[in-house]
């Protein structure tokens, strides 16, 4: 077990996998010499060469498409999209191509590629460098969408994503890059598609993922001062989504708050709530509730950004309210 930054856990996963499998290549803007905008790939080109670690022109649609073509024909590309906001430029390649080839062409084809990208607000980058667009992706059958919350999961899930024969969008958090955590030694993997119960409590279930898991935990700790014991579940993978773990908990607690950093409408939390309503109807003591970003772009100014983005206080308030009212 070693303590390391979330960002270093990601770099370690990439380096270990590139050492293990020569078919893995990296594609992205400024990833080779510069090491990427967040320095995630710093030093990797020195180890593996600029043949396998390729700086691309600025053309997200184009180089994600190149990755799809490379994945179809024997390579295993890992693409970096500098900010998740820019994934919009690659949506055609992800939604119309990567996600559909296995289904339409059958077992003769697979698309083993990973698109890594940092998401989320909290750094004052403003409307086009702060979004959480995972709901765009989970709406497309054929993509796997992962969003780890800890350094250990970042490493273990990225290794699983790289070994996966399906296209995976791997959502990282720019805030979590600077968080440290214990990471098991050796060839550590975490399966995709399995949620994680972070904390157990009998009164309410709080469901979150990525950076919001941290906020949910803070809220749960604050709630103990009001004699409310919360279970916190980290979804970890958003597609396919493990709502069985959520349902099992809600059957015990009867109450659920679902948290996401993206905008409220049509989001991940809406999907979780719909499934809970279907699967746990007879167990629910209170209406399933969502805490998410306001339905506005992410503003740059700190006070406005905070006003638009969910945090532990909002989560705690929503949870306490449900326990008080029902």
């Amino acid at each position, binding site marked *: 077990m070693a303590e390391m930054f979330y960002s270093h856990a990601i770099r370690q996963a990439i380096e270990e996998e590139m050492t293990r499998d020569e078919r893995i290549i990296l594609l992205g803007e400024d990833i080779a010499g510069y090491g990427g905008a967040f320095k995630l790939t710093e030093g990797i080109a020195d180890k593996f060469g600029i043949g396998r670690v390729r700086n691309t*022109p600025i053309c997200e649609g184009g180089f994600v*498409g190149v990755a799809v073509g490379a994945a179809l*024909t024997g390579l295993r590309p890992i693409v970096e999209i500098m900010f998740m906001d820019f994934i919009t430029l690659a949506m055609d390649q992800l939604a119309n191509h990567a996600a559909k080839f296995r289904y339409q*062409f059958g077992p003769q084809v697979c698309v083993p590629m990973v698109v890594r990208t940092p998401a989320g607000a909290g750094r004052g980058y403003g409307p086009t460098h702060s979004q959480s667009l995972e709901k765009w992706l989970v709406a497309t059958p054929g993509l796997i969408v992962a969003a780890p919350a800890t350094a250990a999961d970042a490493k273990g899930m990225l290794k699983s994503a790289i070994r996966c024969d399906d296209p995976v969008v791997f959502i990282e958090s720019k805030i979590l890059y600077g968080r440290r955590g214990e990471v098991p030694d050796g060839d550590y993997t975490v399966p995709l598609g399995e949620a994680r119960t972070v904390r157990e409590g009998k009164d309410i279930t709080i469901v979150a993922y990525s950076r919001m898991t941290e906020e949910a935990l803070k809220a749960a700790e604050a709630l103990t001062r009001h004699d409310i014991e919360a279970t916190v579940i980290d979804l970890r993978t958003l597609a396919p989504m493990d709502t069985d773990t959520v349902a099992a908990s809600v059957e015990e607690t009867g109450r659920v708050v679902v948290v996401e950093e993206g905008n409220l409408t049509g989001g991940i939390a809406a999907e979780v709530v719909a499934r809970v309503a279907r699967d746990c109807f007879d167990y629910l003591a209170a209406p399933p509730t969502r805490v998410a970003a306001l339905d506005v772009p992410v503003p740059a100014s700190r006070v406005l950004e905070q006003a638009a983005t969910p945090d532990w206080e909002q989560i705690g308030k929503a949870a306490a309210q449900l326990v008080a009212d029902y």
Partner: protein
Amino acid sequence: MSDSASRALDDYQRMCLIRQFELALDELFAQGLITGTSHFCTGQEACAVGAIAALRPDDLVTSNHRGHGHFLAKGADPGRVMAELLGKATGYSSGRGGSQHMADFSIGFLGSNGITGGMTPIATGAALSQKLLNTSRVVVCFFGDGASGQGACAEALNMAAVWDLPIVYVCENNQYAMSTPVPQAFGEPSVAARFAGYGIPTCRIDGNDYFAVRQAARQGADRARSDGGPTLIEALTYRMCGHSKSDKCEYRPAEEEQHWAQRDPLQVLADRLVRDGLASKADLDERQERVSTRVRHAIEFAQSSPAPDPETVRDDLYVSF
């Protein structure tokens, strides 16, 4: 007969197969036996067959929405193509793809596709694989004049140029993107001229002349195979039909259609084969006859094939789940 001459006669047969296949398809549409749509390549057969004639069998091809010809030219089984069009379980995509979404990786055909320009980066990525895996294979990427306006296309060609990838882009300029004529859509109507600025060798050729296409593609494939990087061929051609099944094609001048009807690529090749003594009229008729039989068998195979089992509708979405 030289190899080149016998290949030309075989390729005449391939072009006839594509033409007859689509004529038969038109008939099936008329009978209401096919749903959805199709984009015929009638009049553009020399582009597909000429370019693929320049390749090795293990070279790779990507296609677009007008892809029946490319696929048949690469060696697809007409029965399985027809079965896909009829939505049958024996179709290349088990009935999931229809006209615009078929592939057979075992013959190097990486897929037709319904997103205009969508396959250009994918073809470029396939070329990156060939380079990094040292296969000596080349990729031919077919697209149209309409796709040449897509960002994806420009992005792909730029990366191929920067990375010296083994790929030949074949732009079939049939002069209309659906109903929009090239001069209405482009400040520089020549695709070859536009992309020459990307640092790629380009040429503009008669796309209705099988030999011209084959020669240009051979040069491009040789360049790609000898680490010389990408080539773009602009093949000037003409759709002798509407854009798709619903298009009555009322936007083109009659004189223009008549002009191109005189340049039907099948007739151009037939005349050339007879004139050069490479085939007799009887040889050509015999090839046409073989093709008729093959198309008839394809339809029989497709019609007698079972429909897909609805129970399978969720299968093969993921490898891992």
